[in-house]
Every structure is written in structure tokens, then in C-alpha cells.
């Protein structure tokens, strides 16, 4: 059922509320294969909730989420099987503090995907090496810097060769120097053709790396399009306001 036209991820009128508060009202986004989608918007606009729903960490109220054309929000879907195909990198890293870096990375390949220890560790070391962390394999996460921990978290998500990678404000907890090293990794992943959805406050980065940008506001995608259009010539007044505030905060160079 996967034709070239089938998007890797498709959100159809997704709605999600917590109690009386509607966080996502009506969200529809297509993420084609080998493309990068950046979610931007103010804090609390629902970016993280959208990520959590995609990974089935939250139930959605209405609409559907399709992974490779298959409705993963159907109650009959095997949720673990869906999560096996999606890699997630969290804002706060969420590494397991009681395991070494190598064990963090090889946990899922070995226990979930049935890869042998030697093979899993070879792959982990190869990825660590690529991200400049070869020397840290035997360290524990708490002993690493924030940027190193976040890169380990990316390696952990990549170790199972996921179909889709979700990056939830992965640089929000990092200082600018470390932001650079993490974003460089994302840039490389894009070149290798990884399909990614990322939420970010790094507008310059979003403009550079994204194929499409979605501006979330009050639970809807207010504006959606290629970065040149959303950043360069926004149609909506709300988008313009948001971007001008971002420019004022020095997080996006004015054009």
C-alpha cells in the first residue's frame, strides 16, 4: 500500500483535549518521505502534544494519524509495532541513568528487535563515532554534557533505523555552542534522507533545514508551506506577529 505518493506520516483533522481544554483542534499535516517538517509556534501551542500523539503516548479524541498509510490511531492497531517504527528524541533527553551510553543505545535493538549483542554494539559504536562520541560508549549519561547527552539520545533513537524521527525541541535545554553540535547532527540526517518532524524555537535552523514549516496557533495549523513562504511572506497576521517577536528576541535574522 506504500506508493511513492503515500506520505510517511499523515495527520487528518487531529483533535485532542485535556479535560475542558482543547489543545489540538483540527490538525492536518502530510509529511512526505525523506522530508523535514518543522513545527513552530509559541509555547503551549500544542507542538509537544502533537508529537506525543504521533508516538501514541497520548490518545487522540478525533481524526486519525496514518503511518505509511496505515491508521495507527485505530483501537485495533498494535501500538508497540507502531512505536518500533518511530524514533523519538525528547527535550529532556530521557536517557536511562542506570545504563551506560552503549547499553542505552543497544537496549531496543537487542530486546525489541532481536539483534545480537555484538551486532547491536557494532552499530551503536558506528553511530557514536559518526556523532563524535566514540570515547563515551562506556560512560554513564549523568557524566556527559547536555549536548553529548542529547546526541546520545539521537543515537538511541536512530539505532533501530526508524521510518520516522520525531525531535521535540531537542535544543531547548542546550546552550548555543551545544545547539550547534546537535543541529549539525540533524542536518546530516537530512542529507541521509531521514524523514523527520521537529518542533523548534530555532527559526534560522528551521528555515535552513525544513522542507515545510507549520505554524501552530490555538490548536490549528494557521500557516503551512515552504520555509521561504512562511518566514519570508507570511499570509496570516498572527504568524507575522509571532515572527516579529522572534526576530526581536534575536532568534531569527530579519530578511
Amino acid at each position, binding site marked *: 500500500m506504500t506508493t511513492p505518493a503515500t506520505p510517511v506520516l499523515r495527520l487528518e*483533522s487531529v*483533535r485532542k*483535549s485535556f*479535560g*475542558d*481544554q*482543547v489543545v489540538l*483542534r483540527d490538525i492536518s499535516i502530510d509529511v512526505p518521505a525523506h522530508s523535514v517538517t518543522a513545527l513552530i509556534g509559541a509555547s503551549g501551542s500544542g507542538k509537544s502534544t502533537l508529537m*506525543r500523539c504521533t508516538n*501514541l*503516548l*497520548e*490518545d487522540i*479524541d*478525533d*481524526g*486519525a494519524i496514518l503511518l505509511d498509510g496505515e491508521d495507527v*490511531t*485505530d*483501537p*485495533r492497531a498494535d*501500538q508497540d509495532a507502531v512505536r518500533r517504527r518511530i524514533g523519538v528524541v525528547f527535550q529532556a533527553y530521557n536517557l536511562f*541513568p542506570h545504563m551506560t551510553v552503549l547499553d542505552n543505545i543497544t537496549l531496543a535493538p537487542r530486546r525489541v528487535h532481536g539483534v545480537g549483542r555484538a551486532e547491536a554494539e557494532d552499530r551503536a559504536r558506528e553511530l557514536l563515532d559518526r556523532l563524535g562520541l566514540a570515547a563515551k560508549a562506556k560512560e554513564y549519561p*549523568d557524566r556527559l554534557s547536555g549536548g553529548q547527552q542529547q546526541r546520545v539520545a539521537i543515537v538511541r533513537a536512530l539505532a533501530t533505523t526508524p521510518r520516522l524521527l520525531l525531535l521535540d525541541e531537542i535544543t531547548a535545554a542546550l546552550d548555543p555552542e551545544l545547539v550547534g553540535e546537535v543541529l549539525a547532527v540533524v542536518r546530516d540526517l537530512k542529507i541521509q534522507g531521514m524523514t523527520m518532524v521537529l518542533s523548534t524555537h530555532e527559526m534560522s535552523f528551521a528555515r535552513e533545514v525544513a522542507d515545510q514549516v507549520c505554524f501552530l496557533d490555538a490548536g490549528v495549523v494557521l500557516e503551512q508551506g515552504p520555509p521561504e513562504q512562511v518566514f519570508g511572506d507570511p499570509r496570516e497576521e498572527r504568524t507575522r506577529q509571532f515572527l516579529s517577536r522572534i526576530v526581536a528576541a534575536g532568534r531569527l535574522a530579519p530578511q
Partner: protein
Amino acid sequence: MTVTDATVSAEEPYRPSARRLAREAYRRQRARRSALIAAVSTGATALVLYLVIVNSPGWAVTRKTFFSLHFARQALPEVLKGLRVNLELMVVCGALILVFGLLLAVARTLRGPVFLPVRLLATAYVDFFLGLPMIICLLIMITGVPALRLTGVTTDPMVLGGAALVLTYSAYVSEVFRAGIQSVHPSQRAAARSLGLSNAQAMRYVVLPQAVRRVVPPLLNNLVSLQKDTGLVSIGGVIDAVYAAKIIAVQSFNYTPYLVAGLVFIVLTVPMTRFTDWITARMNRRQWQGGLV
């Protein structure tokens, strides 16, 4: 999940889609099926247990010696009278144990060379009373202390027995608290000290609240265990619930009073465990992000 969206925008009121309704219908159907399966399997298990017990060769005799309504009626008031002793001991000793246990645990985690003797004493105390069998501790307290004939020191076996319980259980409980304190991540202490809180303040306001919360279930374990061990003071002649049952049992050669005493203890325990479950669940709901996994 029901449709309770109060803040739907005025211009386009939200209507659940056919997809949502189908999904909810499917979930309801699954829930009904699960409930039915649970009911059937529970019923079947109960039936099998009942048949096995009732058809066992000794059931007639067992029923008379363990399930005699006559002796149960006779024993219940005596057992309840004795239960007062257990409850009093549990409440008083329980409170003291929590305080001493916490103090011991904190003493063992004190830093700095000045506190070395405190640490050593606390460690020695815990080692000693963890190892000493409860019954020996009780015998030493109940028979040994009066033998000293000290003036002004009570010879009441209930007080002395209670003291023995406190001595032993404080050691157990302090180990539980210590495990909780050590499970709090060092970054929490670092954050507290960085705000300028002293070591003691960091302990009091940041570490202990998290530690205590984590150890509530094992603490409850100890409390229930204490509730049952309060019966051991009967070796000093105090008539508690179990001892009251024993008196009737040996007079009548019928064990029903023991069963009554056992049931009374179970009835006491169940609300306690449900209450702590509810407390911990409520704390977690308020502090953690929810989610499906």
C-alpha cells in the same frame, strides 16, 4: 472518553466525526467483552475452589473445627476486646517508630567528620536490631527489665513489649527511609544547595519529601507487619486479639476463634492499603505528565 469540550469556538461548534463515534463504539464493545470475560473467569475460579474444598475428604471435620458459627459468636466479643490492645500498641508504637526510624535514617546520611560518632552509633544500632530476633528482644524487655528491679521503671508488660517493638521496628523502618533518601537524584540536592539552602534545609524541604513519598508502600508493609506483631506482647501475659482467641480455642478444642481473629486483622489491613494506594495515585496524578504508557 466522553465529549465534554466546553471551549469550542463559537463560529464552528465541534461535532464528533463518524470515525470518532465508530472508534468509541468499538472501545465500548471491547470493554463489555473484557468485563464479561473477567466475570466468567472469576466465577469459574470461585466455583472450582468451592468444589475442591467442599468435596475434600476431611471437609466435615474441618468445617466443624474452623467454621463453627457457635464458637465464632462466642469468640468475636472477646477478640474485639483484645483487639484494643493491638490497636493501641499499633497507633502509639507506629508513630514512635516512624519518628525514630526517620531520625536514624537521617543520622546515617549526615555528612562531615563531626558527625562520625552519630553515624557510627546509628549504624551500630540498626545492625544490632535488624539482626536481633523480635521474640528475643521482647523476652529481654518483658522479663529482663523487671528483673533489674529498678525503682521508677515500669514492669507493665504492655509498655515494655511496646518498647521492644519500637526498638526493633525503628531499625527496619530506618532502612526503608534510607533507601528512599538515597534514591533521590543528586541533582536535586545540587539544585537545593545552589539556591543557598543549607544541607539540613535541602534535606528537609527537597530530599525528604520526595524520599518519603517513594517509600510509602514499603512503610505500609512494615506497618501492617507491626500490626500483626503487636500480638507478640501476649508472651508477657497481655491479652490481645490472638491471645483472646487462643484462650477460647484451648478451652473448646475448636479453632474457629483463630479464624475470627485472623479475619479481624484482614478487615483492618484492607482499608489501610487501599488508602495508601489512593494517596500515592493522587500524588502521581498531580505531579506527572499523563499518557498512555
